[in-house]
């Protein structure tokens, strides 16, 4: 299983800080598409992805147990 974390406007859209789902074997892009479909996530083309706290590209394959986070454009500082 995979813990999938959401932040900022995505957290508002999903209505949860994280979801637990089975994303093993899927690419980041596939998981994104699935979630966009299900939760109507806005502006996903601007959203970066992290796997296990490191930025990952859309074609990276998710393994069972990986922690996934969707990172909207950041606004710290």
């Amino acid at each position, binding site marked *: 299983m995979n813990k999938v974390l959401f932040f900022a406007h995505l957290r508002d859209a999903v209505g949860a800080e994280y979801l637990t789902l089975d994303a093993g074997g899927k690419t980041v892009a596939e998981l994104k598409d699935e979630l966009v479909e299900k939760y109507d996530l806005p502006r996903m083309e601007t*959203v970066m992805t992290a796997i296990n706290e490191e930025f990952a590209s859309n074609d990276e394959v998710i393994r069972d147990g990986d922690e996934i986070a969707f990172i909207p454009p950041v606004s710290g500082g």
Partner: protein
Amino acid sequence: MRMYEISKEPIEIQAVIDKVVQREAGAITTFIGTVRELTHGKKTLFLIYEAYEAMAVKKLEQIGAEIEECWAGSQVAITHRVGRLDITDIAVVIAVSTPHRADAYEANRYAIERIKEIVPIWKKEHWEDGESWMGNQLETVSYPSGKPEEGDLDE
């Protein structure tokens, strides 16, 4: 000593500075980021900062490592606040010590610009007439490959 922190409590400026004190240093620069009331004429009431804390600390460490590689003899400490912040509250403190002053200014500037690029922290602005997560209001930033490219991070 933790040089890179996300803090739910108000940041003690001197404590951040103290972390980079070194006998080899001829300069320490401190950047203090504060909550501004007016942005393009619009009045902010307060902000909420949220972080992906574990990754944010890692990315702050990465920024520190980049600085220590670029500016010889530098030491870096950064604390970023999360939670509700009112106008004039301190959101971030960056302290950089280096042997010579020019490097301390440059490296400190580099740190804040990098924070705005790669550290997973978000702010939600609350105004009199609403609220919004900042960062992509103009949708000027997009990452077709899903992560920052070389060029996105080199500014």
